[in-house]
């Protein structure tokens, strides 16, 4: 959660949303903190009880038609209803002409007034995508994110356990590095976790004893991805004989990241163990599950059937 200045919003969207700054330049340092857009229809009629004035205000066809039909004096009064508040900015969509009084008020109160080239629905859609991204809950994790067969595997574990080496090994086998060491995860709508790297690091990783490696330069652009959905967490842990590791994979373990649950696999490691192949298997198993197969459960089902059959054949001779 954060805030964004109208200036930043304008700079980042000027071309994408074909924005024109009509008035209110003085208020470019205003901020907004919500990913919601508000259409102040009711506020214009005077009902300002629950008016969410701190959101971006959107005047679409309905509002503009309503304003256009009012006599000049009444229109100014009506606009005054919303201009008495500290609005972050106002956006007038569609081909609606800007009625007299609106630009003057915007200049006077220093509330930026924008006009995009898009119609209301299209604009709202594009703008929401942007706001969702800006205000998405975020988290920075210590780990690496690699796209393995199209599955985003997030490797975690203590410092120097071998996450970077594993990432490099996977890249060598044709998979794609998204981020190493620092993974920035944001939650998109519908419970999707998106991971990317830091702009300064940009696909550089450190290998103990060698130093900094530029993956993009060494392996080419094919070896990298800028962002990838985080689908499975793979935790690397030191082998500990007293620990209980998963042996069948029947019970799915999950981990919650930013309140989104994703499968989690814990892999004990020791020198000489080939984790790269295991990582590929984890990705492939995940793909199988997505397409409706659950290897461990299916195997167990067959096993149970066989046991049942044997029991029937032998008669119920052993004590029950």
């Amino acid at each position, binding site marked *: 959660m954060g805030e964004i200045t109208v200036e930043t919003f304008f700079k980042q969207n000027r071309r994408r949303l074909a924005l024109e700054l009509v008035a209110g330049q003085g208020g470019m340092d205003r901020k907004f903190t919500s990913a919601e857009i508000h259409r102040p229809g009711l506020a214009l009629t005077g009902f300002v009880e629950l008016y969410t004035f701190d959101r971006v205000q959107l005047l679409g066809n309905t509002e503009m038609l309503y304003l256009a039909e009012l006599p000049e004096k009444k229109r100014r009064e009506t606009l005054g209803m919303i201009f008495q508040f500290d609005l972050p900015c106002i956006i007038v969509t569609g081909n609606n002409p800007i009625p007299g009084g609106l630009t003057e008020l915007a200049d006077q109160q220093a509330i930026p007034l924008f006009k995009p080239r898009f119609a209301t629905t299209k604009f709202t859609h594009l703008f929401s995508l942007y706001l969702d991204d800006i205000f998405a809950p975020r988290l920075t994790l*210590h780990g690496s994110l690699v796209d393995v067969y199209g599955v985003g595997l997030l490797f975690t574990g203590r410092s*120097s356990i071998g996450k970077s080496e594993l990432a490099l090994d996977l890249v060598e086998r044709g998979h794609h590095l998204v981020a190493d*060491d*620092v993974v920035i995860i944001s939650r998109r709508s519908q419970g999707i976790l998106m991971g990317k790297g*830091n702009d300064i*690091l940009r696909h550089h*990783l450190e290998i103990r004893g060698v130093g900094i490696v530029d993956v993009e330069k060494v392996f080419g652009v094919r070896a990298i991805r800028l962002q990838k959905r985080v689908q499975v967490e793979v935790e690397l842990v030191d082998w500990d004989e007293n620990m209980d590791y998963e042996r069948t994979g029947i019970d799915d373990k999950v981990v919650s990241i930013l309140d989104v649950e994703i499968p989690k696999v814990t892999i004990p490691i020791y020198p000489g163990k080939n984790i790269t192949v295991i990582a590929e298997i984890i990705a492939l198993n995940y793909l199988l599950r997505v397409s409706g197969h659950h290897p461990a459960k299916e195997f167990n089902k067959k096993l149970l059937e066989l046991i049942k059959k044997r029991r029937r054949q032998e008669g119920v001779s052993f004590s029950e």
Partner: protein
Amino acid sequence: MVNTFYGRIMFEKIVTIKNQLGLHARPAALLVKTAERFKSTIFLIRDDLEVNAKSIMGVMMLAAEMGSQFTIRAEGEDEKGAVEAVVSVIEDKFYEE
């Protein structure tokens, strides 16, 4: 100062970068090597960015310039010593100008 975070006890201090070139590769390596001598988990925190002090890429990512401030926080059995050691290497300007 001793602080609690999610109920855990930990130790933290605020430091200012004093060497001219800031936290570039060589000082970052020195900082990481210092941090690695300790068992505690050590973090460097600048604004909303929190990086592992034992990871050189993380430390370099801070791109901390001379005069910038950040918090060093450690958690573990040797947390106090860990913070003090990292602080002293920064205060000593990483033995450079």
